[in-house]
């Protein structure tokens, strides 16, 4: 959590604004007939669970632990929390969730995060430094390589900083646009790749021509300079740069209820 911004009666943290914007995008996807989310723990799970409460049609939550259609009342700490299994439409094995559900293209949107994101949407969650002698050994790729490859689209939720938003990842744990336009297609990847990067400062999307992540919107009160300072590449802004709608009272109280449960 960092600064507090004000929003009418209530103060929303930058994390809350980030999560609410991610949930809005999920709500829009569900309304467009793309409700199925492959959810990781942490910010993605919070955003997806918020969206499930805010929108009808609601997103369908699929967890890599094998839970399909989970409707947890409280937020899980891990992807294998009992609550996820008990509220699921179906529970399947881990080999099945990856083969029959993710790989087969049944997931509309996957979430990714990591230690580093580069300008082409590639993500590093493996090592800082060299692979053989890392300065920091990170947890590793987990489900990310195949989420990045096979989910219909990918949403990244990450707090923005110069250290984490880099020109080029130290290691490529999952594929965004790789080395640039056409790379995904050359490799035969089926999903559309990273489509939305929701940060604590705003929303980025890949430029249609260059595939470089470009700022589409700033959160209320955020200045361009803050984004430039927190981005390790020469970040650009779209011409019709927008400001995201401030969190509504309903969004904010629902989010806080989700997190308190």
């Amino acid at each position, binding site marked *: 959590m960092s600064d507090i911004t004000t929003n009418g009666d209530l103060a929303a943290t930058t994390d809350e604004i980030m999560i609410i914007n991610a949930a809005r995008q999920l709500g829009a996807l569900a309304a467009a007939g793309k409700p199925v989310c492959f959810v990781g*723990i*942490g910010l993605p799970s919070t955003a997806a669970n918020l969206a499930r409460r805010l929108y009808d049609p609601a997103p369908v939550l699929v967890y*890599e*632990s*094998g*839970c399909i259609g989970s409707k947890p009342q409280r937020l899980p*700490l*891990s*992807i*294998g*929390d*009992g609550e*996820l*299994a*008990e509220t699921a439409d179906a*529970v399947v*094995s*881990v*080999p099945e969730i*990856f*083969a029959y559900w*993710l*790989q087969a293209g049944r997931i509309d949107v996957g979430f990714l995060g990591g230690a580093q994101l580069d300008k082409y949407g590639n993500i590093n969650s*493996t090592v800082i430094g060299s*692979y*053989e002698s*890392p*300065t*920091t*050994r*990170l*947890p*590793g*790729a*987990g*489900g*990310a*390589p*195949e989420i*990045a*490859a*096979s989910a219909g689209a990918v949403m990244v939720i990450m707090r923005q900083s110069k250290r984490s938003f880099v020109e080029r990842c130290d*290691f*490529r*744990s*999952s*594929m965004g646009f*790789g080395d640039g336009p056409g*790379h*995904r297609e050359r*490799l*035969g*990847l*089926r999903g559309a790749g990273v489509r939305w990067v929701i940060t604590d400062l705003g929303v980025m999307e890949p430029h249609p021509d260059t595939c470089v992540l470009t700022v589409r919107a700033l959160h209320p009160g955020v200045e361009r300079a803050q984004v430039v300072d927190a981005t390790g590449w020469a970040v650009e802004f779209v011409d019709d740069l927008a400001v995201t709608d401030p969190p509504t009272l309903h969004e904010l109280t629902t989010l806080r209820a989700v997190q308190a449960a």
Partner: protein
Amino acid sequence: MAEILSLRDAVAACVHDGDTIALEGFTHLIPHAAGHEIIRQHRRNLHLVRMTPDMVYDQLIGSGCATKLTFSWGGNPGVGSLQRFRDAVENGWPHPLEIEEHSHAGMATRYAAGAAGLPFGVLRGYVGTGLPEYTDTIKGIECPFTGERLTAVPALNPDVSIVHAQRADRDGNVQIAGLVGVQKEAVLAAKRSIVTVEELVDHLEPVPNSVVLPTWVVTAVCHVPGGAHPSFAMGFSDRDNRFYKDWDAISKDRDSFTAWIDANIHGTADHAAYLDRIGVTVR
């Protein structure tokens, strides 16, 4: 047919220095008690295999039991880093740890191939990532019908797989309910297997979302109530999230880690004594 053994006897009989072993359980049903018993018995040079080497492998690695780790995600779920795993990889403490790194989908495919008696499995995986450059066990394969390029990974066939389950009957038939993870595949892929269970019953009643492993595919069944703690066993216990958070501080430092292992693992005779010592009551 499975033998009903104490965990001490099962580990002594089934787990040998130098073995490739897999302790599986995807967040749910992680066989912590078995991991502790392996530490108590001072096994060495183990090749550890696990999709998510979380706390249980942090303890084995920090205790010097392992020289190799095959995995796909090594963190403390919802908390942060695995300090002992990091110390081994970054600084070679207590000794260097060779790693063979995959993705979750790749590991699941490898276990499934192992369970199916195939030498390899096929997936749409790893493409465009840095993993194939450092991991020999990731190769390309061509579809003989369409010419499409896919990825092949070799089967995993551990010497021993160890899982925790809700119950077994006295003949050694095992029932796993809830999040079943990759446990069936891990057991079926292994040469030997140990299953620790919450309860031993006369007769297994069918329950929803369950997997039954017949006694003739299991080597040893051990009655170890609370054997997954701080992981959980649906119907018996909840995840001890507090303990996962506490682990971060315990494991941060070599001395505090070693002191904890000496006191709580080497200082206890078995899992019941361990749970008693750390103040956990089993239902």
